[in-house]
């Protein structure tokens, strides 16, 4: 009997170790968008109509083009890591066209009617019960001041962090680097759990306008 118990424990340990290594991701994960098939590992998630996401591998060292026309869809990449251990995420983004929020202002549209951004980068923190899922969205907005933290009109578990504001840098590549563990603490006043996914989105479904942005050199899960 002790032998059988030992064999059982050994097999169990092997299963646990192999499962751990199967689920482990190589960090940091770098997305240069310099190959035609760079989006093959990403999933498209459609909310309202499809945004055009296209990789341009040969231009400016490779980038991802996002073009939205009254649409809202994102691209989503599953990646698991501990943000306390690997808190940094960086990327470069360029806004070509901002969504037209004047129409919403003219029609006295509410916050939801203005909830469109030229560029968003999501860090998603899933939970065992989906209602506890939380997300930080880093946004580049035309008007909101840099450093603003907002709660999404859709869900209190989504916090929008304005990290780039205005039209000064429009048409230029801007590097963003964030400590997601610290941002989570500031936004949710608590410690972050594991990251489960990242996503990118350019949307104009609420303002019924158009927007265009480019993303490149996304580097996820590193420390200095």
């Amino acid at each position, binding site marked *: 009997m002790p032998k059988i118990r030992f064999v059982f424990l050994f097999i169990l340990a092997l299963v646990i170790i192999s499962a751990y290594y199967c689920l482990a991701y190589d960090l940091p994960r770098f997305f240069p968008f310099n190959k035609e098939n760079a989006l093959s590992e990403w999933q498209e998630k459609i909310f309202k109509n499809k945004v055009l996401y296209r990789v341009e591998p040969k231009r400016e060292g490779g980038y991802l083009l996002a073009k939205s026309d009254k649409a809202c869809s994102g691209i989503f990449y599953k990646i698991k890591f501990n943000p306390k251990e690997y808190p940094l995420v960086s990327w470069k983004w360029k806004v070509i066209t901002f969504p037209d929020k004047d129409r919403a202002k003219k029609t006295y549209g509410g916050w939801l009617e203005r909830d469109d951004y030229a560029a968003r980068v999501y860090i998603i923190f899933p939970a065992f019960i*989906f209602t506890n899922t939380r997300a930080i969205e880093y946004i580049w907005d035309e008007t909101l001041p840099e450093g603003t933290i907002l709660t999404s009109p859709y*869900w209190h578990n989504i916090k929008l962090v304005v990290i780039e504001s205005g039209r000064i840098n429009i048409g230029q590549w801007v590097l963003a680097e964030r400590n997601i563990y610290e941002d989570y603490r500031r936004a949710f006043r608590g410690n972050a759990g594991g990251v489960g996914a990242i996503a990118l989105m350019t949307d104009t479904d609420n303002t019924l306008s158009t927007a265009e942005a480019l993303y490149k050199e996304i580097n996820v899960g590193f420390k200095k």
Partner: protein
Amino acid sequence: MDNIKNKRKGWFFANKLHRQALLLVFLAAFVPTIVVAFCLYYLIFNITASEFGIPEIIAYNIIPAAQKVSTILLISAPITIFIILFFAYKITHKIFGPFDRIIREIDEHIAGKRKGHIILRKSDKFWPLAERLNKLLDKAET
């Protein structure tokens, strides 16, 4: 001696058997409800949420549905369990309630402390048994 009334005790549970039977019914009603609720929440909503991925899509599509389902469950599940338990109590009381009384009366007959019939209500589930035992007692007395 025939006039002795064999009344039920005024307790909620007639005896240990009754309590056990009711517990069994309660678990049989409660456990599947919990399992169904868990399956609804985890297997359906959680997996759908993870497939939707983008939090706004989850918030827009799944949370309203989950709220409706949980409201329906919160109202209907306690009512259903209460109805099941109410009828289970009535039925199990009729089954297990007279059990102790039959044993007690037979013991009294054996000890010679009592004569006459075992008294049960016609609605009691053990009434056919008591009727036959009474016939047996009548035969033994003659």
